């Protein structure tokens, strides 16, 4: 798969998603002496998913800091450091553990600038490995993007490609406010061409991965790839699906989605978080309230995670989140007016 980030005429190199994130962090550590990495076992261990890798050897333990297993305290230290002049990149081993740090993320980091009337800034990045498919069951597989997307003051992104993983991380570091990056664990090994050197991918911009006429599929994270797979199958039957990679949950790219739905008249939202009150609900409501409403020619459909914790059994685990055949079937239903 090709990296879709539009960087004209630059040198690219094949990297995995994890390597692209590491590359971004290395560039950031080199460019900006105030950048530090914090997290559990991100030093010699290299991170739970080997994302920080050998960075501790290159930048030392002062800048690649192992923290105790103290998610709340660690996140709070990152907030305090950001408030006073550092730019921490804080890694949670699993996004699930961010539940331990909700206080610092939601009550402190997100609100500090506002509570202090613009007199303070919290420029930090929380990296959160997320998603199911690894057999890690209920407490290590969740997709919390809607939780954090509900909090004014936070920005929430979900890169789906190595190039975006790098570009969004560097953009997040440039952002003067806290940014949460959900990295899908199943994508860490995915390889693609990634531009070399420094660049940023804008936060808040979706990307049309595959243009189409008949139905708009808005997907995020790994669902983008499943949607593209479904779109190929649909194309064989003459159904031309447009696949949009949401990339950013907050802020959401209204314009791109509205323009697409105006064109296709049909919308399918695909996301891994629990279906109810999820990202798809927001996109659906946004379309219903927008000028695209008068162009809808079918009900809006959502495919999301099951109303259950992520189960352990591999078949159950697959059944708990949208897979390509389900996306294909739902798009077909929309186009064939079966719903």
């Amino acid at each position, binding site marked *: 798969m090709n990296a879709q980030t539009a960087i004209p005429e630059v040198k690219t190199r094949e990297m995995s998603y994890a390597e692209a994130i590491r590359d971004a962090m290395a560039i950031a550590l080199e460019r900006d002496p105030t950048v530090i990495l914090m997290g559990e076992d991100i030093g010699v261990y290299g991170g739970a998913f080997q994302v920080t890798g050998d960075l501790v050897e290159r930048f030392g333990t002062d800048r690649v800091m192992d923290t105790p297993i103290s998610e709340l305290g660690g996140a709070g230290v990152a907030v305090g450091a950001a408030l006073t002049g550092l730019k921490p990149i804080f890694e949670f081993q699993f996004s699930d553990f961010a539940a331990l740090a909700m206080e610092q993320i939601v009550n402190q980091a997100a609100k500090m600038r506002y509570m202090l009337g613009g007199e303070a800034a919290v420029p930090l990045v929380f990296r959160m490995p997320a998603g199911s498919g690894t057999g890690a069951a209920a407490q290590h597989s969740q997709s919390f993007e809607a939780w954090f997307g509900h909090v004014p003051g936070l920005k929430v992104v979900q890169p789906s490609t190595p190039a975006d993983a790098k570009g969004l991380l560097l953009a997040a570091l440039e952002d003067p406010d806290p940014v949460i990056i959900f990295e899908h664990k199943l994508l860490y090994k995915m390889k693609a061409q990634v531009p070399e050197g420094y660049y940023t991918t804008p936060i808040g911009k979706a990307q049309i991965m595959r243009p189409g006429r008949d139905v708009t599929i808005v997907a995020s994270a790994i669902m983008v790839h499943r949607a593209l797979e479904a779109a190929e199958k649909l194309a064989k039957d003459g159904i031309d699906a447009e696949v949009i990679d949401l990339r950013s949950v907050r802020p959401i790219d209204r314009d791109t989605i509205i323009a697409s739905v105006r064109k296709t008249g049909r919308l399918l939202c695909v996301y891994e978080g629990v279906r109810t009150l999820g990202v798809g609900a927001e996109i659906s409501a946004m379309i219903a309230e927008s000028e695209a409403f008068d162009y809808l020619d*079918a009900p809006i459909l959502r495919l999301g995670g099951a109303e259950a914790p992520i189960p352990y059994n591999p078949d159950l685990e697959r059944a708990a989140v949208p897979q390509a055949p389900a996306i294909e079937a739902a798009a077909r239903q929309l186009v064939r007016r079966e*719903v």
Partner: protein
Amino acid sequence: MPVEVIMPKVDMDMASGKLAVWHVEEGATVKKGAALFDIETDKAAMEVEAPASGRLHHILAAPGQVIAVGAPLAFIYAEGEAVGPAPSVASAAATATPEPAPAAADAVVTTPVAAIAAVEVANGTPRATPVARRLAREAAIALESVIGSGPRQRIQKDDVEREIARRAAIKPAAPAPAPVYAAEPAAPAVWSEESGDLHVTTRKGTGTPLLLIHGFAADSAGWMALERALPRDLPLIRIDLPGHGRSPRRRIAGFADLARLVVQAFDRAAEGPVHLLGHSLGGALALALADIRPRQIKTLTLLAPAGLGPEIDGAALNGIARASATESLAPWLKRLTARPDGISHDFAKAAMLARLDPDLRAVQSDMARVLFPDGVQGFDLTAALDRVTAPTALIWGRDDHILPWSQALKAPGEVALHLLRGVGHIPHIEDPEALASLIGRHLRP
């Protein structure tokens, strides 16, 4: 049947409650809503109200007893109701409602809409998608006339598109009529004549109504902007000319024939004297009506009226009557306003949507041929203008390209003359506020 008094659930995780005290004795009367007993939970003490009025009997729980949620504590008998033995406690205590069976896991493909069986009774409003509704609205097609191909007969976008195409294709290759002012008479277009009275609509209000007669190739909908600018309580009567708007497609032999139909419509619609206003061809008809029914007309307002001279932009009239697409209509419409950009593409599109029916275009082409042969006005109402007794105002745009305002100079001295700057042939659309204010002054004695 006595009303059961139970241990209520007053807290989320409450399974049982301790009865603290009864406020009512066995056999005493209670009123619905009055304090009946107190309970204590591990979180709070609270008062419970009587669920019904009557007499309290069969007290089953004493103060201090812990009772399961939902279990009966006593019964309230209606006044006069025979008190029998205590109703079976066993049946009453079976309060634990079984949890509903968990719904089948259906996380991935959810088809909530399709899941609803197609047994819904139609409530008279057609089911249609938003885009279908919008297209139908724009094409002035009633959804009731469209057959839906979607689930449960939902009308979809292409159903409306098909209906628009069907209507446009009723007379598919309508022969392009030769210019109406051609030397040789063109073959009349093929359309079937209808019968019936002219279509009249009214707006209720107080006082003398204002009767509106539209111009050639227009209809009553064209008054909308002016109506908005006029006083809200001014009653209105609008006449659609034959072959226009919703009036029947009637063939007319000439101006007099047309005037006769208008007088008939007037006699039917007007319950008393009216203020009369006509535009262009409708102006000529208003003048004729005022001439025929002078005592019924309180004031007469003529808006760029026809009938006061031979000159007319026949090409524009004919072009408008015949155009079958927005692209061919728009250039002619631009002649109507003072400035070419006075007509937007959307306006032209909307105008064309109202003219999609080829029958309507054919009727109007034929009417143009009769009224304006060879591109001149085939009728002269100058004499009628001299005879009018009602206070009369002539309002004309200085930049009228269809009918030159100089024709107004034929009016006798008592007729008020208003020449509007920067306005063309359709003042009621180009500057409705200014026009409304002039009309207002004219109507007020």
